[in-house]
């Protein structure tokens, strides 16, 4: 899953305001206190699948390599377990920082293609915003169809077991007052 980048990083690739912008978002407050010890990567359960370790992401953010950060898989691999934040000796809320970077990536349209999580996140967002609740079975199907249609076949036995035990059904969950949500999102998304 790790990709190797080649070629020198050039000064022209740096966004001089990126680090300060990240430092201003919730979670980024202590960005500049990082001592690059690697504790975050060491306690992270999924760091070995990342293209950059969390420490490297912080290093890249501080140096302003915005594009490289926002199109990394790392930010989408974070499982929100908060182990990094709990152990970071500099008190950096790395999990929250990852959320901030995810939002920036989506806003900039910069994320790795054919990589499921950002797609899933956006499908989730759309579904929940309109229905008020999520229905996992539909969500999963959508995600596979969009990114790796062949994998759907692999998932089928599990889906069948869930269906047979009555844990998923064909219906979708929704709330009554969906119009209220629309009104709330119209305001807050602006």
């Amino acid at each position, binding site marked *: 899953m*790790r990709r190797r980048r080649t070629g020198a990083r050039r000064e022209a690739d740096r966004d001089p305001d990126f680090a300060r912008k990240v430092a201003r978002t919730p979670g980024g407050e202590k960005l500049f206190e990082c*001592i*690059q*010890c*690697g*504790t*975050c*990567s*060491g*306690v*992270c359960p999924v*760091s*070995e699948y990342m293209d950059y*370790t969390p*420490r*490297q992401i912080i290093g890249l953010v501080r140096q302003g390599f915005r594009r490289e950060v926002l199109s990394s898989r790392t930010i989408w691999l974070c499982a929100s377990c908060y182990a990094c934040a709990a*152990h970071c*000796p*500099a*008190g950096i809320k790395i999990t929250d920082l990852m959320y901030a970077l995810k939002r920036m990536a989506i806003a900039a349209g910069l994320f790795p293609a054919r990589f499921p999580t950002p797609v899933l996140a956006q499908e989730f967002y759309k579904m929940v915003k309109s229905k008020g609740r999520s229905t996992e079975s539909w969500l999963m199907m959508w995600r596979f169809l969009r990114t790796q249609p062949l994998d759907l076949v692999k998932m089928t036995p599990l889906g069948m077991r869930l269906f047979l035990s009555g844990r998923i059904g064909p219906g979708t969950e929704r709330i009554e007052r969906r119009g209220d949500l629309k009104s709330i999102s119209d305001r807050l998304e602006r």
Partner: protein
Amino acid sequence: MAERVGVFVCHCGSNIAGTVDIEAVVRHAKGLAGVVVAQEFKYMCSDTGQGMIKKAIKDSGLTRVVVAACSPTLHEPTFRRACGDAGMNAFLFQMANIREQCSWVTEDRGEATAKAKRIVTAAVRRVVNHEPLQIKEAPVTPAVMVVGGGITGIEAALRVADSGKKVYLVEKEPTLGGMMARFDKTFPTLDCAACILTPKMTEVKDHPNIELMTYCEVKEVSGYVGNFKVKVLEKPRYVIQGKCNNCGECAKVCPVVARDEFDCGLSTRRAIHIPFAQAVPSLYVLDPKSCLGLDPVRCTRCYDACEAKAIDYEMQPRTVELAVGAIILATGYELFDCSRVSEQYGYGRFPDVYTSLEFERLCHASGPTGGKIVRADGREPESIAILHCIGSRDEKHNDYCSRVCCMYSLKFAHLVKEKTQAKVTNFYIDMRAFGKGYEEFYRRCLHEGMDLVRGKGAEVTDVAESEGEAGKLVVRCEDTLLGGVRRIPADMVILSAGLSPRKETHELARAFGISRSRDGFFMERHPKLAPVATASDGIYVAGACQGPKDIPDCVAQGAAAAASAISLIDAGRIKLEPIAAEIDEKVCCGCRMCAALCPYNAIEFDPVKKKSRINEALCKGCGTCVAACPSGAARQKGFTDLQILSEIEGVLCVNL
């Protein structure tokens, strides 16, 4: 008679002049009531600058002087002296701080200049209300108390004693030696700690000028620089010094087995014991907490076994009063408590996770394993992991770098290589080898075949994910040089714990009337220029009680504190700041509120006149009584209401 004020404005190079328009301040000063001279100079504290002041006093008949420059902590004494040399009373001088309080903290030139004008005006308004004060002198008791019998305290005591002064060396443990006595080898030269320490311990014991007070604690300190009174509590050893001949028969028959603190609990001792073979004094001690109750009905085995009749169950604690002129605190540090990171690093959960101090004992020839590096089950380890920065550089624990861990960790790795066949890996964030010969030692270690992984050990787990990890501990970390996560199995893990302030630092600071810095260690008077002095005159700090230090730095500070104490005592007399409180008998209503609040016990009560009175020798001029006095009878010399109010007016009412 109208006062004739001189104002002298300092550029302090560009420190002040870079932000403040000096000329404008001088022009402004010239227009102030009473000012007859206003001058500027690049460095007012220089000889030339002081010469200007002296000349102006004589030529213009100045009766008051204001210097607008840096903080009074730095140069108030300089300028007071200059005024005094020119025949003026030194206290008719006032310092206006336009550097720390103005140019350094204001960015805008206009604002900084305006503020400087206000500060100068305030000083001028104040100084015309100053009164001449007289410096008093007091004799100095030619004795020094050193608190703490580790390497720092030993060095300080020996240096003072060699100069012919009396030294009381107070140590709370039953023996001298402190932390260093527990170490095996010392970096970077690898001399054996005991070989270089024990001769010094013996020297202390044999020195005619040193009174060694082990198993003693300071309970109370009163008095002032040159004349401290200290109450020291001597805990009962239940073994009579002078009778005990260190034969050890008592420990052989003692039925109680207790945790040996000296070995960090890695071995056991008896209730009656000697901390270690070379302990000074060479004397047994009976620990009342583990003894069967000091009760001859229950057990008298040690008593019966002692041919010298040195055991006394009836021994009582004893308070000793000391009179000393100076005090040196060398109370040391304690190791960061690794049980606080038990979840992350497994200390206390996995038997083969050790603290660095425990590992020192494991390496030590007279330690629990006789110097053999073995696992908890006695097997020799095939691999050892050493994790740097445990509890240090971490905002959850200690923010600071503990300075010594990198080097002692390298020393451990070297000892492992020397004593075993084990593979050894150091996990570090930054390798700090700052001292003389340290980088060379680091390089030597690099050749010895140890693995160095740059990246903080992130966790220690017992969960094996592969064959090679089965039955071992696994350290997970990011190798920050290679940029990826690594899992490294180890049979033993050593946590290179940082140096923390001792738990009792807080009480000690209060008892001695000194402050602590944010990290909890004792605070020095100036981090660079007065590293062993404190804000309390006559009280010095040395060694790791002031901050993490290695042995060379501790010894250097011990000697530095000794030199400071010696010069204080050799002066014979000390000058007392005249800024003390006084009580106007005519106004005092005898309510005694002041006496209750005075932190220095400097207020006496005259039962006949029913009035309070200040003992000027004891008064530190803190002003507590002045603020508290309901009738306004208490008054602070140098800080009278008139002086302070006119200063405030000066700040507020300037028309700029």
